[in-house]
């Protein structure tokens, strides 16, 4: 089995749900695919992000906002376990995300 990080992207302009309840599609997804989900979280909007960049001379520069400005922003993630990429993609397709997801294999460091 291999681990994959499924990064969930949404449109910046999309309305953030502010309640604490998970939406019904996500609840259904988590029930259906529970066996493959190791971990996951929904994130606060990018306007709440703080980025820290190394300045190259031992210090840091701390700025307001996400690391990379773009129309698509990271809204949450799942860490999943799958037999191969095909299975991972099958699970990832079922994530009821706004605009789509990115699937990245997790590097195994021994």
């Amino acid at each position: 089995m291999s681990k994959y990080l499924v990064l969930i992207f949404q449109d910046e302009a999309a309305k953030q749900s502010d309640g604490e309840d998970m939406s019904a599609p996500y609840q259904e997804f988590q029930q259906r695919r529970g066996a493959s989900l190791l971990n996951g979280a929904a994130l606060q909007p990018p306007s709440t992000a703080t980025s820290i960049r190394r300045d190259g001379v031992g210090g840091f520069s701390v700025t307001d906002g996400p690391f990379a400005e773009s129309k698509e922003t990271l809204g949450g993630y799942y860490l999943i376990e799958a037999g191969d990429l095909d299975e991972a993609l099958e699970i990832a397709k079922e994530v009821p995300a706004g605009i789509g997801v990115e699937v990245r294999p997790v590097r195994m460091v021994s």
Partner: protein
Amino acid sequence: MPQAASSEVAAAVADAHRREWAFVLAATVRVAGDIDTAEEAVQDAYASALSTWGPRGIPKKPGAWLTVTARRRALDMRRRAATAQRALPKLLEAEEYRDTEPGRDAEGIADDRLRLIFTCCHPALALDAQVALTLRLLCGLSTADVARAFLLPEATMAARITRAKKKIAAAHIPYRVPAASELVERVDGVLSVVYLVYTTGHTAPSGADLMRRDLAERGLELARMLRVLLPHDRDVAALLALVVLTDARRGARLDEHRELVLMEKQDRSKWDRPAIDEGVALLREALAARPPGRFALMAAIAAVHDESGSWSETDWQEILGLYDLLMDSWPSPVIQLNRAIALGFAAGPAAGLAELDALGTEPQLARYPYLAAARADFLTRLGRLDEARVAFEEALILTDNETERGYLRTRLKELTG
């Protein structure tokens, strides 16, 4: 086995390379666990064939000999790697090695080649990487040859292939025939890659020669291999029909001065009749599927041309109807352009030109030389020679194939002359 002369050995190894490479590599990947190890083991097996087939004679089944040798070598390499305790990402868990001579007809072996094709043409890989991997791993072309086929520096092609292999290993792209639910879509992806290999060879996008026969032949071989591996798949039959029916005209595409001859002026007695018969039989099989797929429709268009006794007898209404069906299900600016050309011959150049002009704002065709060339041709037929000259000049700017440029220059000279 009797001893063999070195020229015989070299020829036998070259022949086995061409015929058996995919078969040997595919059968070795399962033992090797990853593609790189398998490739190295297979290369070693071919090298040892060169040195041992002379004194020991050429084996009756070169493919089986090479497979056994390559699998044994792959196992050795794995053992050594395990001893060195290198934990490399593996393509798959290697199965137990069975020391049986793999039979060519055993179904599992045929499946191995199919697995390899689906790995090379996985949609998680970029299309250019799918093409490169297919030529490298299924056709056994060297990286230098693949680079040459696409007129790219070898370093660029090597980087592309390495990157794709790394992704296969790191992301665990499976070595497996897809499930039935995905099969149609995945087969379509494979067919697109094979067709791209063929068309790139049939009319080279750039360079001095109109055709790159080596590449076109690889495309034809891949289409035939798929036909053997998926004998009941109608889309596979359709692709092979399309390639065979297109390739049947190759002997008439250049005149004795190696200048381009368009279909209108081709000597149809130079068309390959047995190939046309084969293609039409395949097409019949492909068309038994309802509704017909895109490759079946394209093959049907090729068949209308191939079976027409002369250019003037061409059934343009039939061709137009087939393009309409293509546009219904697979609309694209290129199909629209070809439909406009067919309309020009069915309903007159003015009608065709009007359709072509409507495509002038299509961003996907902005650098497509055949739009300008088709406009130039219809404008010439309409006697609007000044505009035709401008259109030929535009086509010349966009065309990189020297043989096609030569043709365009000749047409331009006729207008200026």
